[in-house]
């Protein structure tokens, strides 16, 4: 094939991939509708919005570049403290500008640490990212005169957004603000992953050695996407700080990074919406569990994680719900519940086989329905 034709084909292919699908319109229309439909729940929706942005950031490096990180909270936390400090000391009053600067601060950290992340295997990456988050936490802890130490940074006053919209205690303005930021940054991320650059990232994720041999500069691309994702995480953290007018050491915690991974696992990686859908699902699950079992909701989150990994997203969720229901109904203790888990594990192969047969049935049914529909359509004149 001559080069121009090849180029044309590639461009067409990329354009086809970048096309907006009906479901995507539906998703964003639903997000817009949520502003008007649930005015009483804007506070939790705000949390969902910045969590979604945070998850989107992790998806960029995990789903597209294949970098496992257990310390993404480092950037989130830095962005959070940066935004709170900028507002508190009235360095940059206008929130949107402060948001951008906080994101940039996180991006600088991301760029500096990306060279550490390039090296070594998955385990080394896990450790290095975790270590960076812990060091950040320790720094914030050790300079209480600037960060407030373990008490958190208090006395932050956020100026009106764009000079006109003052944040209110019901979170109405905050939600619209977070949602708009999420949407704009989502558009940018979508543009990036649908570009040739995004495609080359996928190649790197698939096989770094081969991508290098077809002329992709692997390291440069990983550094670029890591920095870019750090910017996103910083903005997400800044959104948290601005909407709550507070920043605390908790933003750097391991639990935050682990919860983030759970969000992505619920939503799925590598198609951008995973983080968004996952954030919605995670917040609702967390909210429901926290109302139901305020003290030990982490137990159920843990159970959900284990079962999701064992049985996949759908069946894992169903089995977790079943175990949860049974233990609630019979008022089982945690250890009896853990025994159920062990029993499920012991019968794993049987359950797996049974689920596979169920899958096959469902597929067969769908295929049958499709062919029946096709036959019906053909019979019509």
């Amino acid at each position, binding site marked *: 094939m001559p080069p121009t034709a090849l180029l044309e084909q590639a461009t067409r292919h990329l354009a086809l991939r970048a096309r907006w699908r009906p479901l995507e319109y539906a998703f964003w229309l639903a997000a817009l509708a949520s502003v008007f439909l649930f005015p009483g729940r804007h506070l939790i929706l705000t949390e969902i919005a910045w969590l979604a942005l945070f998850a989107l950031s992790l998806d960029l490096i995990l789903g597209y570049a294949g970098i*496992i990180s257990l310390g993404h909270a480092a950037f989130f936390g830095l962005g959070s403290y940066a935004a709170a400090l900028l507002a508190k000391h009235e360095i940059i009053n206008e929130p949107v500008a402060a948001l951008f600067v906080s994101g940039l601060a996180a991006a600088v950290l991301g760029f500096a640490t990306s060279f*550490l992340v390039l090296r*070594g*295997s998955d385990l080394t990456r896990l450790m*290095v990212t975790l*270590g960076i988050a812990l060091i950040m936490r320790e720094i914030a802890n050790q300079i209480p005169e600037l960060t407030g130490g373990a008490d958190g940074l208090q006395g932050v006053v956020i100026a009106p957004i764009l000079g006109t919209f003052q944040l209110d205690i019901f979170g109405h303005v905050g939600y619209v603000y977070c949602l708009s930021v999420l949407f704009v940054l989502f558009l940018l991320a979508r543009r990036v992953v649908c570009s040739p650059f995004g495609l080359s990232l996928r190649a790197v994720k698939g096989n770094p050695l081969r991508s290098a041999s077809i002329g992709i500069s692997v390291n440069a691309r990983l550094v670029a996407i890591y920095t870019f994702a750090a910017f996103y995480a910083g903005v997400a953290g800044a959104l948290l700080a601005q909407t709550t007018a507070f920043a605390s050491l908790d933003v750097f915690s391991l639990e935050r990074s682990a919860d983030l991974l759970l969000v992505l*696992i619920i939503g799925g990686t590598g198609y951008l919406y995973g983080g968004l859908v996952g954030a919605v699902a995670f917040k609702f699950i967390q909210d429901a569990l926290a109302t139901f079992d305020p003290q030990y909701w982490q137990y159920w989150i*843990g159970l*959900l994680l*284990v079962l999701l990994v064992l049985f996949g997203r759908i069946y894992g969720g169903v089995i977790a719900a079943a175990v949860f229901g049974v233990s609630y109904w019979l008022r089982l203790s945690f250890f009896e519940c853990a025994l159920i888990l062990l029993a499920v594990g012991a019968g794993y192969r049987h359950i797996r086989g049974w689920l596979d047969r169920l899958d096959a049935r469902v597929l067969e049914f769908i295929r049958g329905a499709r062919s029946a529909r096709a036959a019906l359509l053909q019979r019509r004149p």
Partner: protein
Amino acid sequence: MLTILFDGVAYGMLLFVLACGLSVTLGLMNFVNLAHGAFAMAGGYVTLLLVNRAGVPFFAGLAVAFLVTALIGLLFERTLYVHVYAKNHLEQVLFTIGLVFMSVAAVDHVMGSQQVFINIPSVLQGQIQIFGVGIGRYRLLIIVICGLLTLGLQLILSGTRFGSRLRASVDDARVAGGLGINVNAVFSLTFAFGSGLAGLGGALGAEILGLDPTFPLKYLVYFLIVVTVGGTSSITGPFVASLLIGIADVAGKYYVPKFGAFVIYTIMIVVLILRPQGLFARAAGK
């Protein structure tokens, strides 16, 4: 000065006993077990129940902690972990973090969230003076027990048939399997033994490290640092790494308390920059 060195060595030895199981499972199955600390915590609480509530002698409590934790490890390995080996690292991480969350909440529920202490016999309390250096008796005990364990482990690994099977499996599991070694059985045994050691370490270390339901999360980082710094190809690497981390941590907290926790993280990052596979990795990795 010497006292600090001594405390550091005791701390490092303890870390080694806690983390060596993790290093072997990681090297053997390429499996990231973040829930390793949960087994250590289990050992600690088993000893606590036995010694404080049932009045079992301290040393018997330690032995039972080892056995019980090894059994729990075997049970979990056979029923749950075995299905996750084939999955990717991300899923392994999530799976084991899930187990950590569950163990933290369950222990919190049953034992309460406060920090607990195991009653140690009065013989082991206090200090003795050797050449003018104050030495904690309990720390001396830790060094003796952990030193003997390390020696024993080294002998098992280098001298016995099981040890050579294990080393063969770590080097190349597929070829070892091809030679008729039942790698899965070797792995189960090793996992159980490693968990048992962690349990013993948790029980021994309750006095120094403290014991509360968040133990697995608090010390997870230390275990992982030991493993990543030491490499996973032998137990010498983690041993040296443990001593290094132990001494650096104690000395750092004593001399520069303001930078206490930075010291070990910095060591880890410097080592990983210079030698991404750990201090003692072989040149040709798999």
